[in-house]
């Protein structure tokens, strides 16, 4: 695409690092708890609690104590959202799922995703690193899905392969898109000018505001 979007990851973990086989939890339709576990002949068994209509949730969970939940999930590509400061000082790692653009069936939806018209989705071009730079087979044209973010402990995160990373510019763009996702349609990419009605690029307006021309 002619822009520097991906790079080889640094030795230390940084925001924008892309990891393989990251867990992506599906939206829970019900809360199923793992009850008390029993070990017999080397096998661990446990009763599942909280299934609607069958079992009550564990009392400890209702009292605010920790419980274990059965979570439907898949292992797929993910990108680290956690900022550098929090990476250095905290154990949590927020990972957003990457999904292939081909999952979107209609061409108009793919087009809207690329153009940034879905605030929950952030378009990703296909990585163009050479085989010399990255020998690992990577993902195809994709998108980050901000609706599915998982927090991992650093111990689990550090076991994941990090074959590629976003450039600094790509991380900034990703963060801006994430902000659009959280605050919704207040931040548009284009809007009509209040005076003349001409459609204007919002980002350019913001840039002009922040860096006014000398004659201003």
């Amino acid at each position, binding site marked *: *695409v002619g822009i520097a979007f991906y790079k080889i990851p640094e030795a230390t973990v940084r925001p924008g690092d892309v990891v*393989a086989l990251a867990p992506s939890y599906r939206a829970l339709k019900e809360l199923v708890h793992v009850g008390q576990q029993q070990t017999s002949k080397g096998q661990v068994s446990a009763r599942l609690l909280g299934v609607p209509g069958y079992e009550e949730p564990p009392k400890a969970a209702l009292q605010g104590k920790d419980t274990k939940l059965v979570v439907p999930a898949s292992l797929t590509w993910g990108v680290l959202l956690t900022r550098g400061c929090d990476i250095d000082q905290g154990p949590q790692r927020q990972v957003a799922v990457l999904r292939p653009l081909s999952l979107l069936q209609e*061409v108009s939806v793919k087009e809207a995703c690329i153009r940034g018209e879905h605030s929950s989705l952030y378009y990703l*071009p296909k990585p163009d690193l050479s085989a010399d730079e990255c020998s690992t087979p990577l993902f195809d044209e994709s998108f980050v899905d901000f609706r599915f973010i998982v927090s991992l402990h650093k111990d689990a995160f550090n*076991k994941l392969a990090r074959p590629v990373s976003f450039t600094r510019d790509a991380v900034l763009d990703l963060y801006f898109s994430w902000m659009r996702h959280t605050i919704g349609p207040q931040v548009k990419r284009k809007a009509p000018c209040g005076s003349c009605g001409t459609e204007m690029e919002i*980002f*350019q307006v*913001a*840039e002009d505001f*922040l860096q006014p021309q000398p004659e201003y």
Partner: protein
Amino acid sequence: MPQWVPSPSLDQAAALPGVKLAPAGTAGYEEQVARFAQRLWRLLAGSVTTGSAALEQGSRPVLSLFPSKFAESESVEDKQRLEAARAEWARSFSARVDTMRAMLSNNVASDSPTPVIADDE
């Protein structure tokens, strides 16, 4: 490298060797075939997602490819529309990044570290 795997049709699933199904047209035939087709598809999708490449990487497996189970054929016009969207995305990328950098430059120093909560460790 794994390629796209099309979702199997009922007829394809029924025609696989070693598959014993109720005779076509009898009660339960379609349900039986549909169930088998779903199982087969899950198996194929799983092999594409976490297949041989994962094993070759040892303790740090990686994905070789996303499953493209919903891939559709695109017309020339569709491809042109997507190419135009990609070009527009690339063109606006730098402008967005410049804006972000300008907006962030005065705010970074004022951010306070996130407090550490013992239970989260």
